[in-house]
């Protein structure tokens, strides 16, 4: 049995259409035309225990709707899903004890009180034994390094500190599954790196299954081993991050630092992406010219001080998948 099993899941919303002009507004008072929007359209996937899966897609792709169905908030229009063997919308309360959620723009921390007060309250919310709660809290305070600001009112914390407390709060009841919706939104580079490491390490150490949605491909690369890409509610791709890179990388970036101020490589499929004195970045279309041919040409072109061959950013790869390339 998979930890999360989704089979042909569908969600159709009925959306009212706004009529134009005064006449339309008056007509709308009596009958409002509506149209159907397929937010999730026959989604099927399976996630095993301890897997860390990135769930990505452009805005409106159906990511949050899927997560809402998997947490039991929303009832589907069709299809089936099981989380930890339970149908989420039928056993929402029972299941809530076994998963944790972090919704980047929502908070479960009490704003005027220290995070310690919310943690104490969560023991009652999740019916936790005092000893278990204290042990887990000590572990999380240590791992997340939140001790120094545990007793400061939440309103006085930085966004990064608050998010660390937020994730700690979602892990206090030892959930088996963690749903994270944009957990690093609005954070600076350092805070983002800390949060990613914390999520990944917690999952590895405790076997927590992670389903993470994010627009930041860095979250996906640093935290997850597998990626599910959806668009218009349909599955576009489901594979490991590694194979995603191998399959979808059709271009590479070759950066040359040379003794001469300017260097040129005249090969088909090789274009200059950036140029500065003594430094040139070439973009190589691997379907036209293999990268080793470009490297050999670079060696012939002038005295090299440095050479770097890089994959394109993950952002570009995902964009290419969205665009169906």
């Amino acid at each position: 049995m998979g930890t999360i099993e989704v089979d042909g899941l569908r969600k159709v919303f009925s959306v009212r259409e706004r009529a134009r002009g005064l006449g339309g507004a008056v007509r709308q008072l009596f009958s409002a035309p509506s149209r159907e929007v397929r937010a999730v359209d026959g989604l099927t996937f399976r996630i095993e225990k301890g897997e860390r899966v990135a769930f990505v897609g452009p805005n409106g792709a159906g990511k949050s709707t899927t997560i809402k169905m998997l947490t039991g908030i929303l009832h589907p229009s069709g299809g089936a899903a099981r989380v930890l063997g339970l149908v989420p919308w039928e056993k929402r309360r029972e299941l809530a004890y076994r998963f944790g959620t972090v919704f980047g723009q929502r908070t479960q921390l009490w704003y005027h009180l220290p995070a310690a007060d919310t943690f104490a309250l969560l023991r009652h919310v999740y019916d936790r034994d005092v000893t278990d709660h204290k042990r887990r809290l000590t572990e999380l305070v240590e791992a997340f390094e939140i001790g120094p600001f545990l007793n400061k009112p939440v309103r006085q914390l930085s966004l990064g500190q608050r998010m660390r407390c937020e994730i700690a709060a979602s892990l206090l009841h030892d959930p088996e599954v963690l749903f994270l919706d944009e957990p690093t939104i609005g954070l600076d580079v350092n805070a983002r790196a800390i949060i990613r490491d914390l999520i990944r390490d917690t999952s590895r150490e405790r076997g927590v299954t992670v389903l993470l949605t994010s627009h930041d491909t860095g979250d996906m690369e640093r935290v997850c081993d597998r990626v599910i890409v959806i668009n218009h509610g349909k599955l576009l791709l489901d594979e490991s991050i590694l194979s995603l890179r191998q399959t979808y990388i059709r271009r590479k970036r070759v950066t040359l630092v040379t003794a001469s101020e300017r260097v040129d490589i005249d090969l088909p499929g090789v274009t200059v992406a950036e140029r500065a004195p003594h430094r040139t970045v070439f973009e190589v279309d691997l379907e036209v010219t293999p990268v080793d041919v470009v490297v050999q040409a670079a060696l012939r072109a002038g005295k090299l001080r440095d050479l770097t061959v890089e994959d394109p950013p993950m952002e570009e790869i995902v964009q290419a998948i969205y665009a169906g390339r």
Partner: protein
Amino acid sequence: MSWRRDAALAATSARQTMSARGELVGRALFFGVLLLVFSRLWLVMAEEGRLGGVAAANFLWYLALTEWVVLATPMIYLTIEEDVKRGDLAYSLARPVSYLRAKFAEGLGELAVRCVSLGVLGFGLAWLFIGRLPDQPLALLWALPTGALAMVLLMQIQIAIGLCAFWIHEAAPVYWIVQKLNFVFGGLLFPLTFYPDWLRAISEATPFAAAVYGCGKLSFGTTTSAALTTLLWLVVWNVVNAGFVSVVYGRGVRAVEVHGG
């Protein structure tokens, strides 16, 4: 256990209310100014013999009691309206606690802090401004159970108003209407005995009179049976409102489950 969870939610909410001192101070100042103005007004009217022989002190204590009930009731409709509009209510469904029950428990915590702080302040100021207790001071002993039940009733009405946001998005207009009805039918400034018979009959058939007038009229004295009858009516209205709120909430949540937050 559920009651322990409720108690923890109420205690946390009480701590949060105490830490947000600005709002408490604002309400206290408003309460103080109101009592000062009306104490002067009632004293002048009493001197001119326009209070029908009733002591000005009784009128001021009436106002202290009715305003205490109204001001101590948390503005919980605002929180619920915001939760519905922002979709936070939908996300709260993914927790093992009923949103409605949690809000009720949190409201009780906030109410407890306001009830005590505004009660001490309001009754202290009423005594200071008019210099004496009402004619039957022992009747004030009934104020605590009556006031507490009245505040819970008004809080439940506020919860129902907040839940209107499921359908009309903005609950504020509903609140303003209900607030005015509460002022009129509840007899916030004037006892219902001042009203024409027809208006008094209508008022007494509303939960507002049970809550606000029910508490305020203690300033004119009471008997045990009259006080118990008031309490009984408050219990009945609370049960009726709890049922109404549960039905409204159930319908709202079903809409969220089908249409999203």
